[in-house]
């Protein structure tokens, strides 16, 4: 009986250790003095601590620049996409144009079935023709657009579940449809909106392919591509590379610590529906 209770935990703890080991290893390595020290004792805690690696990476390797580019691009595109999806979901679900609403819904959902990298080259040509290649618009626009299908899908499902008496109340109060959306529906939709925002944010924060090819100016790079460039430039200094990894992983882990329920729900629901 005891064995039966211990074995599952033993197997699971081994797996958890395999999941966590790379993170712990990177964290320890980021505080070590040199490659020699990492190689001599790759699994141990640092013998001498070198927190100055963090300052060096932030300034010298421009991690700070990549970091802020990632923060504001992810934030603005996630927020824009969440609000646009909410407005569209409101229009097609709550406003009284059912036929055109169904048509819009079906059209937008097709987007869920197109694998992202299939559109990559055509999107590259599009941003080139728009004249925004090598500006942040080249990422903001596809990130925002890319988040719309899932956003509309999730928020439409949520808005369908809101009670029908809302409209009556709004009409009694003399609210317009826009007023109803802004003052009543949007606040009620907040939980779903947060989920959609987070999924959008993580998607933009982690995106690599577009960021790598649509932006070549170093000052405009985001963390995922900046990090790869950083690795290629500092190939020999593993402590510094690990510092960079910590910088790009820490904010996401922090977000996860507070919002794990929404993150897990948003990501899993999105995948299953897609």
């Amino acid at each position, binding site marked *: 009986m005891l064995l039966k209770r211990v074995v599952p935990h033993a197997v699971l703890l081994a797996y958890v250790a395999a999941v966590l080991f790379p993170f712990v290893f990177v964290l320890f390595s980021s505080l070590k003095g040199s490659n020699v020290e990492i190689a001599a004792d790759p699994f141990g805690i640092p013998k001498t601590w070198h927190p100055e690696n963090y300052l060096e990476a932030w300034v010298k390797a421009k991690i700070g620049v990549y970091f802020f580019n990632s923060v504001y691009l992810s934030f603005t595109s996630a927020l824009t996409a969440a609000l646009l999806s909410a407005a*569209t979901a409101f229009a097609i679900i709550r406003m009284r144009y059912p036929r055109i609403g169904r048509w819009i819904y079906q059209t937008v959902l097709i987007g869920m079935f197109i694998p992202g990298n299939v559109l990559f080259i055509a999107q590259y040509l599009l941003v080139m023709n728009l004249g925004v290649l090598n500006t942040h618009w080249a990422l903001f*626009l596809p990130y925002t657009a890319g988040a719309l299908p899932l956003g509309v899908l999730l928020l439409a499902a949520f808005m369908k579940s809101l009670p029908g008496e809302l409209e009556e109340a709004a009409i009694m109060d003399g609210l317009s449809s826009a007023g109803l959306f802004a003052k009543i529906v949007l606040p009620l939709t907040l939980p779903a909106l947060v989920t959609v925002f987070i999924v959008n944010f993580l998607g933009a924060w982690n995106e690599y*392919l577009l960021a790598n090819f649509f932006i070549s100016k170093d000052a405009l790079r985001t963390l995922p591509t900046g990090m790869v460039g950083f690795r290629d430039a500092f190939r020999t200094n593993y402590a510094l590379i690990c510092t960079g990894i910590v910088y790009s992983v820490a904010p996401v882990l922090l977000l996860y610590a507070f919002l794990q329920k929404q993150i897990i729900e948003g990501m899993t629901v999105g995948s299953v529906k897609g």
Partner: protein
Amino acid sequence: MKHPMRNPWIYTLFTVPTLLLYGMFFLWPMLSSAYYAFTDWNGLENYRYVGWSNFAAAFGDPDFRRAIVNNLIFIGFSIFVQIPLIVLFALLIASVRRLRGFYKTTVFVPSIVSTSVIGILWGFIYEPEVGPLNRLLALFGAGPVYWLAEPKWALPAVLIANAWQWMGFYIVLVLAAILAIPRELHEAAVVDGANGWQRELNITVPLIMPLISVVVMLSIAGGMRVVDIVLVMTKGGPVGATEVMASYMVNEAMGINPNYGFGTAIALIIFAFALLLTSLYQLTFGRRTEGGYF
């Protein structure tokens, strides 16, 4: 009086920006890909219609055929190695009461981290001189192994890094399905005298088959989409050992001599493969497990 929920101006304001962005970045690229794929456009003004020759050239290139095989290996590894492990871990997590939340939260972590960062991180683990994997082997007097530089090791190394990133995500997905099974079914099985693993195999697994089927579909889609981790860890090398269709497409289309016509043809091939494999699966195994789970 006009109904406030029928206001064409508001309706336009609320839907047109979405439709515009969506049309520009989904529908238009799809249509323009279907057009460029039949041209030899390389970014300059002049280009001509070349019929199916881009497609013929792709399938005629041994490097591309290698890439197709590698995509299939990614899919096969997900289905035959990862999914059994995913189901096993999900069953184990569901079987314990203590620490269940901790296991669920922890195994999910790698799937929220950027693939490029995971590529860098695992590149360090596989590093021949200072990487921990070879340091570990050295304790037993083995190595050093050049994990990402030797053709026979590079693909398994990338497969493991990719599995490490995504397994937790699917474990959480399967776990949710297991926990949604009504308790009474288990209790009935206990009364019937089924022991622990009989119960899991005969009751739980069939009940979560619809979800496992979804995971298979997602694995197929994921296996066709894989590209970031390859570009970051190996760029498709050494000598094409880890090349997948999407990395081949990117390397061909965006290299020093860009060839957008050829690249979009590859994009359409990837799309066709994804559709073909998912519908094949649906028509064969998928149908048996359809249960309207979601």
